[in-house]
């Protein structure tokens, strides 16, 4: 079923790409360019899923994920990053991330990740 998604990435190109990729199956309800905006928009929109870039100005995705998880432990956050280092993945786990997609991703990866973290059923 369609989920509401908050897309967090400092790259306009990447936000666009994710929107296009998700439009048939889900609904992108908001876009944030950094970790601070991400937390604000999360409070405001309460989306089903957040796709979270890691390296962003002002506030990075790991910190933003920790905060979103402390606001709402049931939130679903999928890291979506070009960084594929094992240590960074460990940091993401500690921050509470539910999934980790490495860029460049393909549509099936992203859809599969969303289904896995929020479930296919309502």
């Amino acid at each position, binding site marked *: 079923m369609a989920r509401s998604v908050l897309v967090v990435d400092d790259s306009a190109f990447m936000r666009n790409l994710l929107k296009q990729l998700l439009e048939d199956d889900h609904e992108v309800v908001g876009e944030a360019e950094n970790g601070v905006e991400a937390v604000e928009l999360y409070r405001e929109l309460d989306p089903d899923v957040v796709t979270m870039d890691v390296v962003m100005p002002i506030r990075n995705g790991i910190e933003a994920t920790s905060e979103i998880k402390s606001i709402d432990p049931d939130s679903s956050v999928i890291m979506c990053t070009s960084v594929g280092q094992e240590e960074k993945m460990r940091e993401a786990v500690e921050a509470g991330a539910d*999934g*980790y*997609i*490495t860029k460049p*991703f393909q549509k099936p*990866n992203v859809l*599969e*990740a969303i289904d*896995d973290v929020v479930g296919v059923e309502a």
Partner: protein
Amino acid sequence: MKVYTTDRSNDRSEPERIKVGVADYAIAHAGSTLVTSGLGSCVGIALADVEAGVAGLAHAMLPSAGAETKREAAEDDVHPDTWKYVDTAVPELVRELTDDGAERSRIEGRIAGGSAMFEFESSAGAVGERNVAAAREALGANGITLIDSDVGGDYGRSLAFDAETGELSIRRAHGETHVI
């Protein structure tokens, strides 16, 4: 936390031209051409099962790992030098092809290169010639029929190998392109 990574193996269809580097190889299917450039003393080993529509090209530098000065062992898990030596490249190329649907008995072998462009004082001599001999021997040992070759001489060669027909085109800096 599950990690989702892109599987690049089925990203796209096979390109029309596939470049094979030095001490390297590639497999191609009907419709694609394997190319490699600048064979001097190096030897190109081109194997094709036309019926199965699969072909492979290796660009080897030296006859055999064992025959050369023992070097410091490489630290990689997968031995990276397989494609540098004729005697290790040939069986590996045959294995890759048979894994991809080729029948050993149907594989046709062609070789090109192994020239003697310079005679160096410091050299143990005739690496090109030894590369060719090693290729013939390795093909024989692996039950592959060598149907033609364009080897020796004192000039370089560049190769284009048509996976559909098994034809190997050999280009020189000067003179006609030769097809075997």
